[in-house]
C-alpha cells in the first residue's frame, strides 16, 4: 500500500516539493515532472533536503521534461532514476494511488 506523488513545480519558487517530502511515507515514490524536474538537480540550495529522503523514498524524474530544460542526467543527484512516459505509467500502476502536489 504505497503512494506515487507527483511534483510539477520548481522547488526554488514553490514549496510543493518540500511539502511532498514532508508528507510522503517510507516506501512511497516521488516523480518530478514539468518544472518539478529542477528538484533533481545536484548542488543547489534544495539538493540536501531532497537527497536526505533518497532511499527511504524512491525518487524519479521524467526525462522528456528534464531534456527539454537542458538538465543532463550527470547534473542530477545520485539515486534519482529517470523514466519516460511509459515509466510514468508503470509507476502509476505499481502504486495504490497517485497524489498530485499542485
Amino acid at each position, binding site marked *: 500500500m504505497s503512494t506515487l506523488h*507527483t511534483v*510539477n513545480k520548481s522547488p526554488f519558487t514553490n514549496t510543493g516539493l518540500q511539502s511532498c517530502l514532508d508528507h510522503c511515507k517510507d516506501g512511497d515514490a516521488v516523480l518530478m515532472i*514539468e518544472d518539478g524536474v529542477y528538484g533533481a538537480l545536484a548542488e543547489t540550495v534544495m539538493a540536501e533536503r531532497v537527497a536526505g529522503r533518497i532511499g527511504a523514498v524512491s525518487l524519479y524524474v521524467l526525462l522528456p521534461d528534464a531534456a527539454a530544460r537542458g538538465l543532463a542526467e550527470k547534473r542530477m543527484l545520485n539515486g534519482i532514476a529517470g523514466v519516460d512516459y511509459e515509466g510514468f*505509467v*508503470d509507476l*502509476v500502476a505499481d502504486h495504490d494511488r*497517485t497524489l498530485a502536489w499542485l
Partner: protein
Amino acid sequence: MKFGVVISEGPYTHQAADTAYHFVRAALAKGHEVPRVFFYHDGVNVSTRLSVPPQDERHIQKNWTALAKEHGIDLVVCIAAAQRRGLLDENEAGRQGKDADNIAEGFRISGLGQLIEMGIQTDRLVTFGD
C-alpha cells in the same frame, strides 16, 4: 488497468494538457484503458475548436480529439467550469441565449458527477494541473 485522468489547466498556458496527452498515449500503448478524461478548472479551455496555434506548434485540441476518436475516450468538460469561462456547445448556447458555440468534436459537456464516477469506476486517478 483502468486509468482516469483529470486536466486542470488550459492549453499552451500550462504544460498539464501536454503531459496528460503523452501519459495517456503511453498508457494505451502499454495496454491499459483510459475510459475518460475529465477537464476541470482552466482545463475546459482545451476543448475550444477556435484555437489557432502557430503552424510550427502542436495543436492540443486536435490531438485530443484524434486520440479520443481512435481509442474511444470519453472527453468530458465540466459544465460549471465551462460556463464561467465561455465554453459552450450548441445546446448550451441555445439554452443560454448565446449566438455562438465553440466546443470541438469529441468533447462533451457534462456535470461534476462524471468526475466522481470516474474516480469510482477506474483503478487509478491521475491529475495534471498547476
